C-alpha cells in the first residue's frame, strides 16, 4: 500500500523531470499516467487495495466540500434572517471508529462542518460528544453522522 503510493510519487517526479515542466498540470498528468502504469503491472496480485482507495479519497473530498458549502449556506441563512430556527443540543454519538487516527480525523471533520462542534471523547473511546445547532430528532442526527462521515471515512482508512 505505502510502497505503491511512494512508487507512484517517484514515477510522477520522473515524468516531470523527463518532460522538463514543473507545473501543477504536468504533475497531475504524470500522477494519472503512473497510476495507470502501476495498475497495469500489478494486476493479478493482491495489492489492488491502493487502486480502489485513491478514487474513494477523491470522492470523499468532493462530498466534504459539498457538505461544507451546503451547511455554510444554511447557517448563513439563519444569521441574516430575524427568526431563529436553531435547536441546539449536545449529543453523545456511539463510535465505530477505534484507533486514535480514525477518531481524530472524524472529530476534525465533524468540527469543520458548520453547525456541529465536537466537544469531547469519552475515556474508553466509545462515545464522542458533539454540540450541534440543528437537532430535530436525536436518533436521526446520530444516524446522519454515522452513515455520512463516519462510514465514508472508515471505508477509506480500513
Amino acid at each position, binding site marked *: 500500500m505505502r510502497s505503491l503510493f511512494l512508487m507512484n510519487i517517484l514515477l510522477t517526479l520522473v515524468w516531470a523531470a523527463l518532460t522538463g515542466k514543473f507545473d501543477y498540470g504536468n504533475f497531475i498528468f504524470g500522477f494519472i499516467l503512473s497510476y495507470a502504469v502501476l495498475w497495469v503491472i500489478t494486476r493479478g496480485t493482491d495489492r489492488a487495495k491502493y487502486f480502489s482507495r485513491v478514487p474513494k479519497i477523491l470522492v470523499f473530498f468532493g462530498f466534504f466540500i459539498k457538505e461544507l458549502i451546503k451547511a455554510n449556506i444554511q447557517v448563513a441563512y439563519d444569521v441574516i434572517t430575524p427568526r431563529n430556527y436553531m435547536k441546539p*443540543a449536545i449529543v453523545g454519538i456511539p463510535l465505530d471508529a477505534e484507533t486514535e487516527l480514525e477518531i481524530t480525523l472524524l472529530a476534525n471533520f465533524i468540527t469543520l462542518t458548520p453547525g456541529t462542534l465536537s466537544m469531547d471523547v469519552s475515556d474508553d473511546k466509545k462515545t464522542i460528544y458533539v454540540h450541534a445547532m440543528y437537532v430535530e430528532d436525536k436518533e436521526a442526527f446520530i444516524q446522519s453522522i454515522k452513515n455520512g462521515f463516519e462510514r465514508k471515512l472508515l471505508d477509506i482508512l480500513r
Partner: protein
Amino acid sequence: MTDIWIVVLSTAGALFILLAAVGILRMPDFYMRVSVTTKAATLGVGLILVASTFAFKDFSVTSRVLAILVFILLTAPVGAHMIGRAAYFIGVSMWNKSKLDDLEDKYDKKSHKLK
C-alpha cells in the same frame, strides 16, 4: 475569464467572513458563536486564498496557498474543540431553548475527567 473567477471567489470569501462577524453578534450562546465563526471564517479565508492563486498564477504562490489551506484545515477545528471544552468545564451555560445535553453531570468537577 480569470478576472471573473477572482471577483466571484474573493467576494464570496469576504461575504462568508462578514457573516461570521454578524454571527458573533446574533447567536444566542457561546457554543453557537464558536461554531459559526470557526467554520465560516475557514471557508472565507480558503476562498480568498484560492482567488489569490488565480491572481498571481505562480507556482510558488500556489504551493504556499495549498500549504496554508492544509494547515488551516488541521488547526482551526482543534482550536475550536479546545475552546469549547474549556468553556464547558468552567460552566458556560447553553441557550435556554437547547434541547438536550448528554454531557451533563458526566465530568468530574475537580479532575475534569469524563466519567
